[in-house]
Structures are given as structure tokens and as C-alpha cells.
């Protein structure tokens, strides 16, 4: 399997996993969207010199992982590039901020190193939370959630089309690539002279294809104003999920659980 095939398969995998039957995939997408937002906002609001506070926030992720039966191995594999970027961005901190604030053995710890750790943890957790949301919701339901907060149907259609367009585009890349290499068997890669015309025809062809896909959707009764309006309404389970998750997130954010447990033992 070549890289493009693999990429297409990965995109399908996201769709596929969102259709798995478990409690999380059945929850109203808007409830999940708001909870994910809440989590990210509270996570990012943590003081940058308090990495230990950040670590508590993983409790929510662990719960979601267990309830949603999500594979952590696949998650890390898929997100490794983004993780790397987040880690690289964090590295700038210790260079800029060199105040020594503590010492572990003989190793001096600067405030920059602490904020770097916090930033990295925050970044990775936020990405994982978003990934968990998408993988338990799916792109289409994500659009339904957007529609519920009254984002215009046309805009949401664009989002959904871009998502579908990625696959059409990748397929087109694959086709042109194969056609080229069949006729230039002795070359490695694409000759720079052919780049211009190749990218040009790639654009025209994939835009044309995307237009056809939209036509096909319309011919089969697709209407952006009604399509995303189908799964409205919170039911009991959505409400329970919402209250429970919000409570968990607020507790792990504002109450220092481990310290509390520690105190209980000390008093005894």
C-alpha cells in the first residue's frame, strides 16, 4: 500500500470508528463539543508554573479513553507529527526564561523549564481531547453540532465538503502520479519541468471532481439547511453525560484531589 492509499484509509478509519457502538458515540454531538471546549479552556487557563495541576487533567482523558474504547496506540501514531510540533514549540521556553527557581539534586531547574513542561502537557492534552472528540463523533455529527449552535448551513457544508474533498484530492494525486510514473519509468520522482502542469491539472481535475460530488449530493436531495438539523434535542443520557463530565473537569481543575486524599491520611 502506498502512502496516499494509507492516508485515505486513515481518514476512513476516523469515520468508521465514530460509528462504533458505545456510550460515547451515541451521545449528542453538541454535548460532546461543549464538554471538549470546556476541558480545553480550563486546561489552558492553568498557571504556567503549575505543571502538577496539568497532570490531574489527564483523569478526564483516561475516563474518556476507557468509556469510548479508544486505542491509545493508534492515537499516538496518528498524532505523532502534531505532538512533535508542540514539543518543539515548548523548547523555546527554557532558552528565553533562565531564572533558577529550584534544584533537584545538583540539576538547577529554571522557571523556563517548568513553563516548558506545562506548555507541552497542555498542548498534548488539548490535542488528545480534540482527537477523542472527533473519533467518537465523526465529521458529519460534528457538523450537526455546529448547526445546533446556529452556524449557517452553507458554512458547514463547506467544512464537510473540504473533508470529503481531501479524499477526492488524494485520489487525484494518486492517479496523476501513477499516470506520470508509468510514462517516465526511468525517473525518480517528478521532473521539475513537469511540476507546473502537473499541479495545474491536479487543481483543475480535483475541483472538477469536487463539483461533481456536490452535484451528486444535490441530485440525491442534499439540502444544507435541513441535512444537519436531524438529530436535535438532548435526551436523558446526554444530560447525564454532560453534567457528569462537566463536574469531573471542574473538580480535577480546581480541587487538588491528591492533596486532599493525602490530608485525609495525615489527619488520621
Amino acid at each position: 500500500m502506498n502512502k496516499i492509499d494509507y492516508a485515505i484509509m486513515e481518514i476512513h478509519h476516523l469515520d468508521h470508528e465514530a460509528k462504533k457502538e458505545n456510550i460515547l458515540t451515541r451521545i449528542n454531538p453538541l454535548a460532546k463539543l461543549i464538554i471538549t471546549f470546556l476541558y480545553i479552556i480550563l486546561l489552558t487557563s492553568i498557571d504556567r508554573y503549575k505543571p502538577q495541576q496539568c497532570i490531574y487533567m489527564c483523569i478526564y482523558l483516561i475516563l474518556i479513553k476507557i468509556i469510548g474504547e479508544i486505542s491509545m496506540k493508534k492515537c499516538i501514531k496518528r498524532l505523532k507529527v502534531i505532538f512533535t510540533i508542540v514539543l518543539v514549540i515548548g523548547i523555546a521556553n527554557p532558552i528565553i526564561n533562565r531564572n533558577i527557581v529550584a534544584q533537584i539534586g545538583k540539576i538547577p531547574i529554571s522557571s523556563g523549564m517548568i513553563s516548558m513542561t506545562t506548555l507541552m502537557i497542555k498542548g498534548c492534552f488539548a490535542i488528545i481531547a480534540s482527537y477523542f472528540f472527533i473519533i467518537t463523533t465523526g465529521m458529519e455529527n460534528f457538523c450537526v453540532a455546529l448547526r445546533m449552535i446556529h452556524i449557517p448551513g452553507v458554512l458547514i457544508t463547506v467544512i464537510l465538503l473540504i473533508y470529503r474533498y481531501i479524499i477526492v484530492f488524494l485520489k487525484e494525486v494518486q492517479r496523476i502520479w501513477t499516470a506520470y510514473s508509468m510514462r517516465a519509468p526511468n525517473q525518480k520522482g517528478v521532473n521539475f519541468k513537469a511540476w507546473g502542469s502537473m499541479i495545474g491539472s491536479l487543481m483543475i481535475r480535483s475541483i472538477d471532481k469536487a463539483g461533481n460530488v456536490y452535484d451528486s449530493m444535490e441530485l440525491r436531495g442534499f439540502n444544507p439547511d435541513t441535512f444537519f438539523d436531524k438529530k436535535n434535542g438532548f435526551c436523558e443520557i446526554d444530560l447525564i453525560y454532560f453534567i457528569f463530565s462537566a463536574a469531573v473537569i471542574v473538580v480535577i481543575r480546581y480541587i487538588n484531589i491528591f492533596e486532599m486524599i493525602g490530608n485525609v491520611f495525615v489527619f488520621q
Partner: protein
Amino acid sequence: MKAEECVMESSMLKIIDLSFSYDGKREVLSGINLDIKAGECIGLIGANGVGKSTLLKLIVGLEFAKKGKIIVNNMEVNSKNLREVRKNIGYVFQDSDAQLFMPTVHEDVKFALLNYGYGKDEADQIAYETLKKIGIENLKDQSIYHLSGGQKKLVSIATVLVLNPDMIIFDEPTVCLDPKNRRKFMEVLRSLGGTKIVASHDLDLIYDTCDRSVLIADQRIVKEGITQKILTDRELLENNGLELPLSMISRNKMSVIM
């Protein structure tokens, strides 16, 4: 007045003096007039590039002509009542790749049903039955992007049959199909109620399934009439870039040998 109403009622598709050009310069179709009655099966034939697909796209409102009118089911095809018009027309694209976009076969087939307000379970049921009708229920959960050319064709046919529309338009339905699936398609086509328009180079298919045929050449309708008459007229076909259906040729050869 009454007689006129009666005629209007039985007419499924009426094309009046239609001319079309993509670029505003070169006309692809010019002065097309056609009347198709409800329940007819019409073959649309002509050499490559004469405008068969273009005519079909005009009928479903994927393109609009500056001159002339198309009336489907007593409704003019224009941007205002497009949704109404399309509700009753199914259209199988010449290029199946362009038609299918959902991740799996089953989801693609039920896409239209969900759009027209069917419940999830009902849509599942109807989609499955349609797949079964065409004999591809085993592909149900397969990814669209990993289907063969012929399988894609069958799935795109299913996506249209699923709604059971009043009129179905097929653009090259048998391309990529193996002999068995082609035969299966012909059976399905015959069993369908409603009006059917089939554009194809598979003249044997047209010969076997269409009551009436329309031959297009030089931007115009050159001949329109009973299929058996048109498809046995060697001179007419050859003058317009076509040949007799294969079954005719072999039949002629057999009679020469005997």
C-alpha cells in the same frame, strides 16, 4: 382543453427547441425537440462527443440552456423548482467515481433516503433490499474507494434505484460490467416501473430494453422512432458514426454462411 390536459399528464419529459453551448461559442446541442411519455424506455444513441451526456445533464438541471425549455412532469426545469424536479428523477452518472462520496457502500446508498426524511432503520432496510436486488449485498460495508470499476457502477445504480423515482436516467450504465452483471442490470431495468432514459454505446442493450430510440448527431436529433427500426438501419447508423449492434452483425453473418 381537456384533451390537452390529458396529453400533458401522460408526458413525462418534454424538450422544446433546446440549444446549448458550454462556452457560449460552439453549440453542443441545437434545436432539440423531444417528448417522452410516462412509462417509456428511451434509448439515446450517438457517436462520442455528440452531446448525450450534456442532454441528460440539462434534464436534471446540472446545466441550464439559454435557449429552449425542458419540462419534467409538468414542471419546467429551472433554478427555482430544481428540488421539486429532482425529487422524481434519478441520475446515474457516466463516471461513477464522481457519483459516490460516502465512506462505505451502504452509507452511500442510504444517503438519499436520509435526505428525504426516512428514519434510520427504515433507510437501512430499504438500502439493504436495493443492494440485494442488484446482487451486491456482500459489498455493503466495503469502502467506496476500494471497489472495482464495475462494482462502483453497480453501487451508483443502487444509489439511484433506492428512491424508486418516477424517471431514471442512465448514462452508460453497462460500461465496466461483466456479462453476468450486464444481464442482471438488464433484468433490473426491465423490471423497473416508471420512465427510463438510457444513453449508451451498448446498442445491444438498447435493442433489448428500449421501446423507442433517439439518434443524435451534428448537434441535432437525426432520427427518433422504434428502436428495432433504427438499430437495424445500417445506412443510418453508419452515416452517423455508429455501427449495427453486435448481435445484428453476427446474425447477418450467420445468414450469409447458411
